[in-house]
């Protein structure tokens, strides 16, 4: 369909309406300054050719006229209303036009070429669907995970395990070697121990000699001293002296005591207190006391008796004691005789009574009567006795008393007689008789008594009885009194005698009593006792003192003796205390010296003891005091035993290591760990190989499928792009079927965004053009509008694009409208296409004021030197052919290095096809241009030389890797934005060699670049071909590798060698390392 006119009546941004009319065939150049409406033309066309939609300007009045086989079409748009006319008549349907997205392919505005548009996305999506063959190949690829990092980590693990195993083996070998030494070691140790022991003895011997010498020195020092007391001696001496002093003191004390005791003795007046018989005196005193008591008692009794007597006298009427009856002798005799007669009569009476009584009752003897009789007899006897006594002694009244007693006895007898009556008539008769006799006797007595003046009751028995009783009492009282008196007298006499005796005793001991009485005597005796005791004490004291003095004397003597001995032992004169003290002052010094000597002697003895079993030689040396010999022996032994400790430690270490090995099995353990790590790595290797095989086959299948089913559009676009860029770039889809440009020179894939603006525009032009062609349903191409699409294109590419568009216009009859603000574009088009496009000056059409601008002069095109005039080397120099840098992609190799033997062909390719590098040529030979320009044989030859070069570069890169450009550092995630500059600096310093860069990073030449990131960077570099751990190949190896890869092709081995040689020779020297 041909555009014949375009009317812009109302359009936002356009002030005055304008029209383009009478538009012809072929190329059109619409020029105009900025804001002249060029882009508005595209907008107007889009609005005319597409359905109205939201967002379209409302104020529109546009029109266009087209021609096709159907006729003349006219389209009018007013606001949202679009109307088509065919040949002036309203058309029911518009002409067949592409979809809106596809329409963009015809309207190539510079804005839309700056980035990806919806059209491009749609195109890409279509490609993806077609190339995938309805399979999700990425999902299949996920079944083959590849983790080089993990693999390397396991590889390192195996290396570590291998190192550990080797280490264990080395350790084992070392242990074996060391263990073999064990017997020798033990022998050495034994010898060394002997030497050690000997060394000990030698040292001991040396020590002995030294000690001996020292002993002598000390002894000499000691000998210089006088005989020294010991501290003990000093102490002893002091003690002895002190003791003597004490003894003296005590002696004095004892003497004083003795004297004092003597004085006390003297004061007692008793020289021999032991002779003082105090006990006898005491006894006598007691007797005296008793006597006095007795006397007192007697006197009391006497007094009482006197009282009784007086009483009795009173009872008898004797009156006062002075009137005491005093019968004469005759009277008394008479009384006595009468009394006797009474007595006898009483006795007979009693007997008779008793006999009579005893035969009355039981016939038993009458004890009572006997007792009465006995009593009576006794009383009579007694009385008789008393009478005798009393009569012979004083007082006389006592005889009276006795008489009374007799009387009384007679009375008693009478009573007795009157006792019990007998029933026996004989007995009674006798009894009567007895009584008569008794009465007669009594009467006589009474007469006698009266004659004597005694009141005698001649009354019957009872009065007699009373009289007798009274008389008896009086007699008794008198007797008693007399008795008592006699006793008192006797007692007094006795007492006097005792007193005298006692006093005499006391006087004997100067114990004169103050009186004779017991208290005085007591007192005197007590004093005597005290004196005796005192004398005894004094005597004892004196005795003790004396004994003590003897002891003291003895002890003093002994002490003096000891002291004398002490002094003697010290060779001092006895009592030479001063010298002793002087020596004692020297004692600490002497003791110190002596102590040293003793110490030395002790050491000496100990040493000698330890050397008891020493050998003869040593013994002799010691004996002779040969220090030199001993020192020499020590040196020898020391030399021998210097390593003893080491030997022992070595032996212990060997044994410990052996035990540890037997216990822990380190060799087995490390081997097991190595085996395990190896198994794991082998497993991973298998996994990886299967994964890589999977990727290989999938990539291969995908590639072939793509090749076989590549969308025509893509193929066409690819060919166009190669043509546009002279083979520099080709078009492909990546794994995600995203469009990519492949830099044939550098062998790198680039996204659209990574391309320069110009290249991107050219790519999109190629793509949209191919798309448009593919989607045009009939051979009725729509006009193509390019709005400043080639503004940033370099001249060569401009020519290529312009030529392609001119060819499109020529071959397919498509109108090409190129909109530009550059006046010189007309010349460019002319130069590129050989024809002048139809020129429309939009400013003129719109009658806009424009500043005239002169078109810029186009730069002259480069021309190559004529190959006929030069050697290859000269030609290359003239043409400025760069050397080969195999670090770069093979595509960057200058073609010269492949066609040195055919410079004319080279010239033609470079001149006509504008191709300079291997990559460009490789890309171009597959295009129509390439097929047109080069025959098949040439293309084959070139293709094989290209293969040779590529294989050679691959071989050269083994072990080298690509140079790490800044772009690579920017690409990897391992280098942050902040680190980029510093890492790039390092890369420059390292000549962009990846392994040197990594080494530099590990040596911390870039601070804070962590180890993990270094690993990450290393892996990335290796993955992307910058780092190759293999060893580089030499020239022969490279040639053989190339030969192996390409042999079988039409090129001969010789030609292969030739090309390889050229390439080797052309390598830039700075790359050779």
């Amino acid at each position, binding site marked *: 369909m041909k555009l014949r006119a375009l009317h812009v009546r109302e359009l936002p941004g356009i002030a005055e309406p304008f029209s383009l009319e009478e538009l012809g065939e072929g190329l059109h150049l619409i020029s105009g300054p900025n804001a002249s409406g060029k882009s508005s033309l595209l907008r107007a066309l889009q609005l005319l050719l597409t359905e109205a939609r939201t967002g379209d300007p409302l104020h529109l009045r546009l029109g266009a006229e087209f021609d096709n086989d159907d006729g003349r079409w006219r389209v009018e748009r007013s606001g949202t209303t679009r109307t088509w006319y065919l040949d002036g008549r309203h058309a029911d349907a518009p002409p067949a036009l592409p979809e809106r997205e596809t329409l963009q392919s015809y309207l190539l505005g510079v804005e839309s070429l700056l980035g990806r548009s919806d059209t491009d996305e749609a195109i890409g999506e279509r490609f993806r669907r077609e190339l995938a063959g309805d399979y999700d190949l990425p*999902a299949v690829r996920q079944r083959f995970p590849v983790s080089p990092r993990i693999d*390397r980590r396991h*590889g390192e693990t195996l290396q570590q395990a291998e190192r550990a195993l080797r280490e264990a083996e080395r350790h084992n070998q070392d*242990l074996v070697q060391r263990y073999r030494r064990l017997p020798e070691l033990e022998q050495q140790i034994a010898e060394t121990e002997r030497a050690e022991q000997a060394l000990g003895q030698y040292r001991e011997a040396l020590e002995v000699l030294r000690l001996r010498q020292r002993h002598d020195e000390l002894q000499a020092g000691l000998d210089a001293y006088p005989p020294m007391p010991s501290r003990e001696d000093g102490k002893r001496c002091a003690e002895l002296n002190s003791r003597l002093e004490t003894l003296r003191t005590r002696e004095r004390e004892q003497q004083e005591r003795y004297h004092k005791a003597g004085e006390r003795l003297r004061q007692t007046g008793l020289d021999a207190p032991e002779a003082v018989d105090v006990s006898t005196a005491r006894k006598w005193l007691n007797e005296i006391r008793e006597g006095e008591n007795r006397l007192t008692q007697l006197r009391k009794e006497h007094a009482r008796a006197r009282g009784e007597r007086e009483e009795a006298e009173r009872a008898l009427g004797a009156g006062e004691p002075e009137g005491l009856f005093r019968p004469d002798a005759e009277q008394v005799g008479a009384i006595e005789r009468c009394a006797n007669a009474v007595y006898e009569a009483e006795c007979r009476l009693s007997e008779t009574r008793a006999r009579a009584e005893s035969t009355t009752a039981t016939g038993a003897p009458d004890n009572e009567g006997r007792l009465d009789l006995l009593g009576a007899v006794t009383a009579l006897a007694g009385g008789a006795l008393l009478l005798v006594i009393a009569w012979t002694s004083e007082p006389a009244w006592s005889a009276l008393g006795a008489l009374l007693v007799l009387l009384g006895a007679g009375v008693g007898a009478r009573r007795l007689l009157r006792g019990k009556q007998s029933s026996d008539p004989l007995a009674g008769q006798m009894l009567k008789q007895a009584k008569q006799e008794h009465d007669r006797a009594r009467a006589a007595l009474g007469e006698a008594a009266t004659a004597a003046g005694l009141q005698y009751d001649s009354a019957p028995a009872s009065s007699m009885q009373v009289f007798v009783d009274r008389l008896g009492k009086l007699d008794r009282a008198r007797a008693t009194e007399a008795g008592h008196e006699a006793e008192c007298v006797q007692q007094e006499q006795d007492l006097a005698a005792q007193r005298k005796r006692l006093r005499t005793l006391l006087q004997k001991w100067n114990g004169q009593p103050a009186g004779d009485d017991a208290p005085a005597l007591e007192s005197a005796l007590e004093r005597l006792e005290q004196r005796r005791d005192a004398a005894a004490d004094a005597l004892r004291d004196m005795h003790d003192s004396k004994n003590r003095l003897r002891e003291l004397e003895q002890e003093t003597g002994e002490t003096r003796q000891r002291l004398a001995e002490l002094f003697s032992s010290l060779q001092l004169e006895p009592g030479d205390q001063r010298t002793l003290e002087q020596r004692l002052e020297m004692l600490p010094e002497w003791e110190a010296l002596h102590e040293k000597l003793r110490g030395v002697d002790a050491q000496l003895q100990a040493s000698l003891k330890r050397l008891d079993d020493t050998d003869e030689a040593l013994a002799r040396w010691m004996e002779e005091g040969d220090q030199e010999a001993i020192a020499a022996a020590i040196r020898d032994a020391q030399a021998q035993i210097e390593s003893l400790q080491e030997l022992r430690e070595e032996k212990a270490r060997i044994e410990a290591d052996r035990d540890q090995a037997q216990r822990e099995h380190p*060799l*087995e353990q490390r081997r097991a760990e190595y085996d395990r790590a190896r*198994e794991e790595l082998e497993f991973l290797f298998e996994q990886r190989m299967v994964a890589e095989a999977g990727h290989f086959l999938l990539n291969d299948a995908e590639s072939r499928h793509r090749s076989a089913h590549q969308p025509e559009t893509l193929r066409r676009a690819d060919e166009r792009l190669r043509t546009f860029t002279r083979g520099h770039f080709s078009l492909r889809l990546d794994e995600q079927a995203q469009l990519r440009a492949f830099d044939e020179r550098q062998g790198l894939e680039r996204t659209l965004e990574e391309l320069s603006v110009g290249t991107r525009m050219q790519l999109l032009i190629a793509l949209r053009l191919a798309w448009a062609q593919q989607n045009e349903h009939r051979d009725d191409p729509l006009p193509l509008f390019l709005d400043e699409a080639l503004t940033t294109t370099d001249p060569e590419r401009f020519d290529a694009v312009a030529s392609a568009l001119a060819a499109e216009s020529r071959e397919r009859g498509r109108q090409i409208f190129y909109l530009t603000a550059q006046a010189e574009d007309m010349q460019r088009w002319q130069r590129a296409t050989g024809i002048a496009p139809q020129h429309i000056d939009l400013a003129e059409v719109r009658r806009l004021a424009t500043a005239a601008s002169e078109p810029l002069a186009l730069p002259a095109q480069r021309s190559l030197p004529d190959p006929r005039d030069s050697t290859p080397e000269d030609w290359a120099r003239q043409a400025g052919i760069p050397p080969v840098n195999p670090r770069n992609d093979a595509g960057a190799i200058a073609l010269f290095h492949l066609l040195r033997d055919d410079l004319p062909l080279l010239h033609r390719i470079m001149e006509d096809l504008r191709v300079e590098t291997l990559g460009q040529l490789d890309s171009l030979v597959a295009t129509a241009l390439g097929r047109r320009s080069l025959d098949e044989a040439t293309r084959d030859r070139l293709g094989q030389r290209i293969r040779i070069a590529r294989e050679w570069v691959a071989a050269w890169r083994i072990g080298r890797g690509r140079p790490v450009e800044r772009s690579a550092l920017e690409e990897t995630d391992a280098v942050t934005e902040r680190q980029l500059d510093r890492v790039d600096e390092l890369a420059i310093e390292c000549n962009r060699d990846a392994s040197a860069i990594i080494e530099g990073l590990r040596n911390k030449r870039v601070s804070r670049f962590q180890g993990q990131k270094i690993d990450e960077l290393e892996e990335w570099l290796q993955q992307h071909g910058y780092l190759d751990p293999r060893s580089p190949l030499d020239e022969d190896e490279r040639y053989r590798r190339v030969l192996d890869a390409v042999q079988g092709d039409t090129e001969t081995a010789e030609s292969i060698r030739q090309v390889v040689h050229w390439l080797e020779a052309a390598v830039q020297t700075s790359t050779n390392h």
Partner: protein
Amino acid sequence: MTLKLLAVGDLHLGRRPGSLPDALRDARSARSLGPATALERLVDEAINEQVDVVALAGDLVEAHDDFFEAYRDLHKAVARLVAHNIRVVGVAGNHDVQVLPRLAAELPGFDLLGEGGQWEETVLTGADGSEEVLHGWSFPRPAVTTSPLAGHRFERDRRLQLGLLHCDRDQHGSHHGPVTSGELDDAGLDAWLLGHIHKPDALTPEKPSGYLGSVTALRRTETGPRGPWLYRLASTGIEAVEQWTLAPLRWEPLEVDLTGLQEAGEVTTRLMRAVREKAEAIVAAGRAPDALGLDVCFAGRTDLRRDAEAALTDEQLDDIPAAGLRCFVGRLRFETLPESDPERLAREKSPAGLLARQLLILDDPDHDDHRALVDRARRHLSAVAEDRAWQPLHRGEPNDAEVIAWLRRSLSISLDALQAQRREAE
């Protein structure tokens, strides 16, 4: 009366068996399944059976200078045999050139034949006074590149003549005593008791010469019954040859056909059944091992490969009790193919079709593209194999068999995945 000679192949004391599950990797468990235990058992059995002679064919220890670890086990075992009046003779292999001479020096009852690389013969006397002659040759150093038989002539007499030798049979260029089968035959001995190769030959009275094999499996690849061989020798000849399969660990390959799999869970059933059958067969044969390691390969045609793989991830395959044995899966791989006919699939104009075609090419060595495919794949895989990760394996370039195996396995996975996508899409 016969003389009972127990011939013992490679032991490699000082090594532990590999490919064990985690539960058996600790030192104690691993050693209980290793050569030390195998040695102990064969000594027990030799004593119980009152063998007359134990002949050791070299490589008794792994490291030639392992004088502290493996040597101790060896010394103890030989001393026990000697203490029970069992004669012990041996030859040194490439691994024990130092250890066995020391053992001979320290243990009077052990005879090292052919020390220093010189042929030596000894007379074996049976209980009945019958005599057999045993010729032996020991490695003088770890690497021997010439044939020990070269230039040597054995003097024969009417007695039975046996040879005890550690060697590499029919491996020209070997560094481990290369001999040829012809040399062995020409030697004119009645039987060769050979050490070095761990895979035992099928020794019989009729064919008594060959490799004794390793006494117990040290690697997963050492499959089948392992153990020493009892030779009953009489003046008339070899009466019997019997293998004492007393190895504590045994490995076996186990192929499980998944053809006709209806649902994924069935894979476990089939696997367990196969394990059980294998275990029962081994137990029935007598002298069962303590542990049975299985190298499992799932083969056949199924579209449920991925599901089957998933079904097995939760299975406890490290300890499978079967027929009284502790069984474990040491390696498990799938080499199944989709159910669809690869030839039909290969006709598809799709990536799946292309892959199916590759499979057919691989299976047909005569195919025009077979060589090219393998070479291309090898170039690609060689580049990967040169990665520093694999350097410790010290591998050479992959060979055809490996490349083909990897390609087949990857194709198995790819085709399975693509067919699954097809089914989902349908």
